[in-house]
């Protein structure tokens, strides 16, 4: 039965009612992190901080933004940028964060692939991470609609058209998503709702799932060592801190983590103040016009690789290749048939596979930005075929990998 005594301190009072000390232990001081990890393990914290920056800057943008097709453009480009004191700051923080967050996501993902952190009990971490990637993509796309510039409108047109699924001609579905024959008021308002409410809510839920999935397997380490966390934690608590292979999440690991975060934030705010241009597409400074396509439509840089997989093929094959690229990363834990959860450098053919995939995606990204002509089309086509070939080859090259 619950039994309460007269509290001896505020902490004791809270302890009796909320078990704060126990929570602190479970979440921080007795959540164990291996010692042999490097700065790449700080990417998750950087992502969490960047999401917080998006949330705060988004809340301030929301106070003047107007989701009306006649007002949206000016509410961003005139009201927020020129009239509101420090309005430019929120917009630049939001725009830069939306772009940089994808760079960090990609680093985070490739770190996971390199160290094999998606197998041996870590499958749920990988899956929840991929769901975060998909939701973040939807979040960025819906946000891109809001200023209602030329790129907003035409990206909205092209991306919603994908849902007609080529030869299946599901035009009714496209009109249902838009609430109109073309992107118009109904479209803007519903993407506004998705952007500022439903998708951020989903992201927060998924971040919770991602963290929960880390709890039992713990984070991997840079040597692919299998650590007995209970034994090492006991060693640490018994006083052999130097001999133990683990350390406390807080404050030990956090202090290293926040060091990297600090360096990141200096870089981030350098971009916000002096180099924000890359996050603001010049074409989007023209208001939306349904009767004029910009001469060259391309998505933001972080979507270019999958866009380039769509582009070189005829529509149905292009859509199949695109769909393949969207789901294939999810299946990585099962396509990698090797039991080794060690760094790629010690995995023979997988090491080559890893670097080929990385280079291939950089090539796809570069080609996606260039006009679809001549040699660029050819390079794009080869890289797109290469991407598919690499994934098909993965089970075969990992099947016979020697156990290390």
């Amino acid at each position, binding site marked *: 039965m619950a039994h309460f005594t007269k509290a001896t301190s505020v902490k004791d009072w809270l302890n009796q009612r909320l078990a704060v000390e126990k929570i602190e232990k479970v979440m921080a001081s007795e959540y164990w992190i291996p010692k042999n990890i490097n700065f790449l393990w700080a990417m998750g914290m950087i992502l969490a901080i960047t999401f917080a920056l998006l949330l705060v800057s988004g809340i301030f943008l929301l106070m003047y933004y107007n989701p009306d097709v006649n007002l949206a453009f000016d509410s961003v480009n005139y009201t927020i940028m020129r009239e509101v004191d420090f309005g430019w700051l929120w917009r630049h923080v939001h725009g830069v964060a939306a772009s940089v967050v994808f760079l960090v996501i990609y680093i985070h993902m490739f770190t996971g692939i390199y160290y094999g952190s998606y197998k041996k009990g870590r499958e749920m971490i990988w899956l929840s991470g991929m769901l975060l990637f998909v939701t973040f993509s939807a979040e960025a796309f819906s946000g891109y609609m809001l200023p209602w510039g030329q790129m907003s409108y*035409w990206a909205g047109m092209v991306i919603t058209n994908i849902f007609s699924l*080529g030869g299946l001609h599901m035009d009714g579905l496209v009109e*249902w998503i838009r609430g109109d*024959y073309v992107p118009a008021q*109904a479209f803007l308002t519903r993407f506004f709702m998705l952007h500022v409410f439903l998708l951020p809510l989903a992201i927060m839920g998924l971040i919770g799932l991602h963290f929960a999935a880390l709890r039992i397997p713990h984070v991997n380490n840079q040597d692919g060592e299998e650590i007995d966390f209970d034994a090492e934690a006991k060693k640490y608590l018994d006083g052999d801190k130097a001999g133990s292979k683990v350390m406390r999440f807080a404050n030990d690991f956090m202090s290293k983590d926040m060091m990297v975060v600090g360096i990141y934030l200096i870089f981030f705010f350098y971009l916000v103040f002096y180099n924000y241009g890359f996050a603001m597409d010049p074409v989007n400074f023209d208001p939306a016009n349904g009767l*004029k396509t910009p001469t*060259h439509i391309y998505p933001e840089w972080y979507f270019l690789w999958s866009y380039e997989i769509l*582009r070189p093929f005829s*529509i149905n094959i292009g859509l199949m290749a695109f769909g393949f690229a969207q789901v294939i990363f999810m299946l990585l834990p099962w396509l990698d048939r090797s039991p080794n959860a060690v760094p790629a450098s010690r995995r023979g053919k997988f090491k080559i596979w890893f670097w080929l995939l990385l280079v291939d995606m950089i090539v796809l990204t570069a080609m996606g930005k260039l006009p679809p002509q001549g040699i660029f089309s050819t390079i794009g086509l080869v890289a797109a075929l290469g991407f598919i070939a690499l994934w098909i080859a993965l089970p075969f090259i990992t099947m016979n990998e020697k156990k290390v």
Partner: protein
Amino acid sequence: MHNSSRRGFMGKAFGAVAGVGAVGSLVAMKKTWDPLPSVKAAGFTTLDMSIYPEGKLITEKWRGKPIFILRKTKEMIDSQTESQATRDIVVAGIHYMIAIGLCTHLGCIPAYIPAEKEFHCACHGGQFDWSGQVTKTPPPRGLDIPPFKIEGNKMILGEVGPEFQAMKDSGVTL
């Protein structure tokens, strides 16, 4: 025993109520996202076809989409291949190319290049000839023709007339 069968019944009863509610909510949500009646009602445009100059591409607007109108030159009419002629639209004795000006690939507006009498799509490099037929992929088919009805020298876009129905039936357009 008695209790557990009673709980089983209660569980099933709740499941039934919740199921009906869930289906109902889904229907309501689906319908809420449908285009509004006002949007649908505004989906008709009447054009006076006698005003278009020969050989020059004019863009009109219907349902927010660009509509290409090209009054064909004599040279075009004479040189039409059989398949180009299937897309021909004749109003009061004058020949036109009329199409929705959105690329059938993913919906960019192809630009008309008068010197080459061709449409070029900047988005993924698709091309169409002056009659609206596709000449270079990725677009899977020629430019779509909007539903139309001819009345004298007027054309109503959004209504299905016999000429359009015939084109649809023979697969010239979707």
